[in-house]
């Protein structure tokens, strides 16, 4: 009699659960919705091009574009050549729109800044400062710092003497370390 009670306490809930969902095994076992499916639906349609905006250098050697233009214009041809030969640093701000429905943290990001108009690699760049956290669909500015390449400084000087920075800048060879709910994904993510 008592062993029948034990058996009933196991079998009755199982039968009742299946009966409550019209004998549908998936609905009985997993419920009405699968959070993993709904959570990652938008990843399949991810458009990385739409994520990045306004990638233009803010400062070169800690000088604003107007100061730099005045400085370059004051240099003689020899001084300009010496300027081109010496190492220079660059900082830029990249506006990123997170298209994701869930929070994500960029722990580190690095890549090459490239002028898309003439395919010149301007600088090797990396994330300045600490990791950046994005909540769902948040837009943030990422500060990037880098070292300008020899070809890059020549191209930049040409653009600056023409009146401004190159505008059509892309990022290639992106290497990033992302944190999604504590799961760390590190690797190469192509170019934008």
């Amino acid at each position, binding site marked *: 009699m*008592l062993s029948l*009670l*034990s058996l009933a*306490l*196991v079998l*009755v*809930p*199982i039968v*009742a*659960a*299946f009966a*409550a*969902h019209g004998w549908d095994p998936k*609905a*009985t*076992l*997993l*419920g009405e919705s699968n*959070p*993993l499916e*709904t*959570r*990652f639906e938008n990843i399949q349609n991810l458009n990385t091009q739409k994520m990045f905006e306004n990638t233009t250098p803010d400062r070169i050697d800690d000088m604003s574009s107007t100061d730099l233009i005045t400085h370059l214009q004051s240099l003689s041809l020899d001084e300009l050549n010496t300027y081109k030969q010496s190492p220079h640093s660059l900082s830029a701000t990249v506006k990123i729109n997170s298209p994701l429905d*869930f929070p994500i943290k960029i722990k580190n990001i690095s890549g090459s800044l490239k002028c898309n108009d003439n395919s010149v690699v301007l600088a090797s760049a990396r994330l300045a400062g600490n990791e950046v956290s994005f909540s769902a669909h948040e837009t943030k500015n990422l500060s990037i710092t880098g070292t300008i390449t020899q070809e890059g400084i020549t191209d930049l000087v040409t653009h600056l003497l023409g009146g401004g920075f190159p505008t059509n800048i892309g990022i290639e060879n992106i*290497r990033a370390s992302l944190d*999604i*709910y*504590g*799961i*760390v*994904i*590190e*690797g*190469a*993510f*192509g170019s934008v």
Partner: protein
Amino acid sequence: MKTNLRKLVKKINWFGVIAGILMIVLPFAGMWWRFTVGTGAIELTTSPFGITTSAFGQTMESTLARYIFLGATIGIIIAGLFVLFASLLPEQWWSARLMDFGATKVFWMAISLVMSPLIGAFIVNNILPGGQTLTMYILGAAISIIIAVLSKYLASKFLKKLWSKRLMKLVTNVLWMIAGVFIVLAVCVFIVGKFLPSGISSLVPAGGTLSVNVPYVSGSAATTFSMSMGGGQATLTLPISMGLMSGFALAIVTAVFSILAWIYHPGPPEEKKKK
């Protein structure tokens, strides 16, 4: 009147009274074990009476699990009431039967809760990577079965006292459980050997690696998976953490009192007559 009351109080199985009350309280005393992947990627807390699961910030619900845990909750409350009544009235004819029904329930629940993640982690860490042979597991199962059969035979032959018979029954059942564990592991080794001769790594695409590391019941470890992606290599690191929770401590206390109550409890009237 006073003497009768004193006699009655003296006969009460106090271990059982405590065990019965604890068993009724236990389903409401919190979860027993937690399992986490990352920081909220997967969060699971469970006990034999309930489960909470969330994946990537969203709660998951299973009607089947909810109903099964409801059944277990009702079952343990009934068992607790049985142990309580049996302990308060140990001389009634039904007392020993009620005690037998309820007393070992929490013990087996605690054992199952520890064994399940232990076996799971052992399978993931040792059997899934491949290269294991069946011999050790078959030998383990055979030895456990032989000892269980032998101890049952010896107990029936030599043990006369009720408490020693009950204790031996518990030990024999634990041995049967160990044999069962070895058989389950042997089946897993056989399946992995048959379908994944090079282990789980053979499922990883070319150029990728998989390093599986899962903690045993309590602790932290990280599983890493790397794969070729766009000419480069991407690595996924999954930090896994597990731990026993406060509810489990109460379960152990309850199990100890239940077993003591069961061993201490007088046998059914027919056994007394035999004496």
